[in-house]
């Protein structure tokens, strides 16, 4: 049963990976500065391949990276590229190879294993780049809903739910509608519209289908529309050209990070009610100072990278 599920999952993952055809059959990151390409047909050892390859980061396709060496294996089926800069954590690279006699270019995407990338995006969104404490977004809701632990948990849960669903939705609309029609400049308008409609839809459906859950989450659903994070995640996933699975990981990670931040803050604020605070600091100002302390602590995560 588990084996079959794993197989199905693998099949889906394979399907989600972009299909590529050409001489390059595989590519992987093999070292701190190294990318290795496997080739279907052997290359000519006499040619200087360094001048014929181009490597760019997927996020910055306009900035070519420096390739210091390009070593061909004796059988001509493996090309090892050494980059001047170290391979970055979530690194996904597009390698172009002009192999044909007419100089026809072929491009291939090289990156770390799928699960490693997903994991690093998830952890990065939840802790290293925590939306509240490292990117300083969603503060209105953060200060508004962190008074009590129950509210914080309810808000965190409904937020993660809406975030994940709307991220998938936005990803699909961007890649299947806006991009083919070259309407990228409408992204802000479209995303905000989609999110507003989506929240309204969820509100209506939940009211009919599961009144119990609606009663629990209803109040927060309305608030979510005006949360910066809910719009920031789609903007970030479009900027980084994430695929469906990476978008899901980003959405889940940021939802978990937001819930964590809310919960931590609620714990402290419940204690603060009993503390003797100087009068001008009561209420919001002391909450800001506490958030600042949390942010300092989260700054420590910035040294972590994958």
């Amino acid at each position, binding site marked *: 049963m588990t084996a079959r599920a794993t197989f199905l999952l693998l099949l889906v993952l394979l399907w989600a990976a972009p299909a590529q055809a050409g001489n390059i059959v595989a590519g992987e990151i093999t070292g701190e500065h190294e990318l290795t390409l496997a080739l279907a047909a052997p290359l000519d050892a006499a040619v200087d391949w360094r001048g014929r390859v181009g490597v760019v980061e997927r996020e910055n396709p306009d900035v070519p990276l420096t390739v210091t060496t390009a070593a061909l294996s004796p059988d001509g089926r493996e090309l090892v590229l050494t980059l001047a800069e170290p391979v970055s954590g979530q690194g996904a690279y597009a390698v172009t190879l002009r192999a044909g006699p007419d100089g026809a270019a072929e491009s291939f995407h090289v990156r770390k294993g799928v699960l490693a990338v997903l994991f690093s995006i998830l952890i990065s969104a939840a802790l290293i780049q925590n939306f509240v*404490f*490292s*990117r*300083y*977004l*969603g*503060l*209105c809701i953060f*200060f508004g809903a962190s008074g009590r632990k129950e509210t914080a948990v309810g808000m965190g849960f409904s937020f993660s739910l809406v975030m994940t669903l709307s991220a998938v939705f936005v990803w699909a609309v961007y890649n299947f509608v806006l991009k083919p029609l070259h309407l990228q*400049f*409408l992204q*802000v*308008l479209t995303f*905000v*519209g989609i999110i*507003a*409609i989506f929240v*309204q839809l969820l509100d209506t459906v939940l009211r009919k289908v599961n009144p119990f859950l609606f009663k629990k989450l209803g109040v927060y659903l309305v608030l979510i*529309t*005006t*949360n*910066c994070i*809910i*719009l*920031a995640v789609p*903007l*970030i996933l479009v900027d980084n050209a994430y695929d469906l699975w990476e978008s899901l990981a980003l959405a889940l990670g940021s939802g978990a990070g937001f819930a964590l931040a809310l919960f931590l803050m609620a714990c402290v604020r419940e204690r603060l009610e009993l503390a003797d605070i*100087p*009068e*001008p*600091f009561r209420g*919001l*100002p*002391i*909450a*800001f*100072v506490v*958030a*600042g*302390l949390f*942010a*300092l602590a*989260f*700054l420590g995560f910035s040294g972590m990278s994958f």
Partner: protein
Amino acid sequence: MDAHEHTVLERLSNGLIKENPIFKLALSMCPAVAMTNTVRNGFLLGLAVLFVQVASNVTVSVFRRFIHERIRIPAYIIIIATWVSVSDMTLAAYAPGFYKEIALYVKLIVVFAIIISRLEVFASRNTVWPSFWDGMGMGLGFMFALMLVGCLREFLGAGTLWGVEILPFKPFFFWSLPPAGFFAIGLIMALFIWLERRFNAWRAKR
């Protein structure tokens, strides 16, 4: 004419001090924390917010009779998003260097609570001129708050103001770190509350 001048002054002082978006209403604090490490960033973002606030205030007050009560929130959001796209593209074209630093926050102006709350509270119930001045007041108040925090942090953190060197050393590098935004706003907010208390007590004594 007299009445008109009265509203102008009243709206401006309301936005700048009495209902300052950041220190008093405590709305839209994300940019105030994240983008105030220098005065210039605060100024540019404040300018974008001022423009979007005034433009959407005017648009909504012009069309207030045509917007149906029940779909007003989506309608407001679309209006705001349109003006945000305009300012986003303008900044990207004319100030690309600075735009890179504040790009995400400019796009996020769409969901700033202050803008939609002014549309709901003021522009949807008033004529064009008062709405215009209300937008000016709120936008300037926002910009003032951002620049105040920016001044404090840039001066204490880097010893400069608007990139001009004032002190030959860095007095307190901590204020340049991102988390210091929270501390700066908490302290200034407490200062505002304290001053208001003192002022009220002083007035009551007289």
